[in-house]
């Protein structure tokens, strides 16, 4: 069913569009960067950046961090657009009956549909990561394994994030609503990540603060995961102005919390799906 889902995503054209957009970004990077003839600088659209030290780090590391940061949101958002329709399309009247009459349990139908969708995007992300990593290696001589690992973590983050979109797809049976609620959750996740500096100050109440904390821990920590994924490349020099918290070392905890909450959401969604009439 996962293979069927990936094939369907390709045939729908949305995944091909996603792949094409990713390749445009890759081509853009390939065109933009090159090493200076003497190897002392990196040229970005012809502008020279000292290769050795830029804000305390190498130019390649700096560029990889900025590239990963700026493209991650786009990759995630476009990924949601590319595959969010796969679950609602399965639930349309006249189509749901066809799927549900086949000898597959609803749990495996839902999970394989969801994982098929996420794997399709995750494979795309890894492909782009590999190409950009190779570009930096070939053009600048920098083979940064941290970048590859970072992109792997972004792909994992997408799998966890998609649990929210998959569940809202089941509840609303609408691609549009699922996308909107998915984006809303993204912003909620960002707000929860910085709740101490932001949301806490809206109301000085212990119950309110504990509720925000609970929400933070029971939902996938999108911002936390992406932030930590970037740290696998290096510490973003621009984060220094945000204080010591922002420049902390990589921690796996957001991934573990998100894994647990995404598992719970997928389990809840599968249970809900198995009880519904179509």
């Amino acid at each position, binding site marked *: *069913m996962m293979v069927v889902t990936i094939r369907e995503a390709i*045939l*729908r054209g949305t995944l091909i569009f996603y792949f094409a957009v990713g390749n445009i970004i890759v081509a853009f990077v390939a065109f933009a960067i090159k090493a200076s003839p003497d190897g002392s600088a990196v040229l970005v659209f012809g502008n020279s950046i000292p290769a050795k030290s830029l804000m305390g780090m190498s130019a390649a590391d700096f560029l990889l961090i900025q590239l990963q940061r700026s493209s991650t949101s786009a990759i995630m958002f476009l990924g949601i657009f590319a595959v969010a329709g796969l679950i609602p399309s399965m639930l349309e*009247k006249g*189509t749901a*009956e*066809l799927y549900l009459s086949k*000898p597959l349990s609803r749990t495996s139908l839902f999970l394989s549909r969801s994982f098929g969708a996420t794997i399709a995007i995750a494979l795309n992300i890894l492909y782009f990561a590999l190409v950009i990593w190779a570009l930096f290696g070939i053009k600048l001589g920098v083979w940064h394994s941290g970048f590859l690992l970072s992109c792997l973590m972004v792909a994992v983050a997408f799998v966890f994030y998609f649990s929210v979109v998959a569940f809202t797809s089941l509840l609303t049976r609408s691609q549009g609503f699922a996308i909107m609620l998915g984006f809303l959750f993204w912003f909620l996740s960002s707000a929860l990540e910085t709740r101490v500096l932001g949301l806490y100050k809206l109301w000085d109440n212990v119950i309110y603060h504990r509720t925000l904390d609970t929400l933070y821990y029971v939902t996938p920590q999108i911002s936390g995961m992406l932030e930590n994924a970037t740290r696998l490349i290096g510490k973003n020099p621009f984060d220094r102005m945000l204080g010591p918290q922002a420049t902390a070392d990589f921690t796996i905890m957001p991934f573990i919390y998100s894994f647990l909450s995404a598992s719970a959401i997928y389990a809840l969604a599968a249970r809900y799906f198995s*009880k519904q*009439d179509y």
Partner: protein
Amino acid sequence: MSIVQTQGLSKTFRSGLIKKARVEALKDVSLSVEAGEIFGLLGPNGAGKTTFVKILLSIAHATTGEAQVFDHALGALSIRQKCGYLPENHRYPQFLTGLQTLLLFGNLHGLKGRALKQKAQALLERVGLKDWMNVKIKRYSKGMLQRLGMAQALLNDPELLFLDEPTDGVDPVGRKEIRDVLKDLKVQGATIFLNSHLLSEVELICDRVAILNKGQVLKVGTISEITAPQLEYEIQLEGTVTERLLAIIKSSVAETHADARVLRVTVPDKLVLNQILDSIRKEGILIESVMPRRATLEDYFIKVLQSGEGS
């Protein structure tokens, strides 16, 4: 041997967030379908026919009652392994071709590779879509989609085939072809469960039927039981029916209908029929023919629904 058995199956739908509206789609439905028969479930729109089939295939869940298909309780995957289903108003991904559609749904049945492709091609040929198999289905007509649906339902060589309004939107030639496919399947030993409101279609192919109205089963029987000849006759005359003759006949029969040269009577016994014939002769009118009248399934269906049973 019963392939499908239900006991007191009921389904109540609830809708609305605060004030929940209740719709009783099925009320205490007990039915059985025997192996190898073509069973027709008849009823007007909204009678509960589709809900009944969906429950058997675990697409919807019964509120109360029990059911077994192939002696398995509902929900068992082995049931759906042996079943084919053509839903009403089925909808396929529009970006697929006919062949791709069958490959997709064949995969869900666990079929793979060359064997699946050959099977899909053969089925498309069987339903008359050979020349259309590589055309995207968004270009298909309603009748072609119905044929594709038939092919999809046959992918796993089902032992039990559920068809919900299979000839809906299909032209007369296509209907005949679908009937022929169903007859072939019956010969091969398949059991067919047909939901329809096209009574003439059902009458042509079904062994047994059940009439469902407002979620309740009103009647179950073979076509010949339901349409058995009653003491109803059509008398063709060579003269015009006179008022006096009509008055004599009306005094002795349960029901009379007269056109200029045709008299339809429902009599309590054959003696009364002969008395009527005598009266006609006494009036000097020649009798051309006397034909016992067999009720059609449609006659019976309308009569049952109009009598208000089940409401």
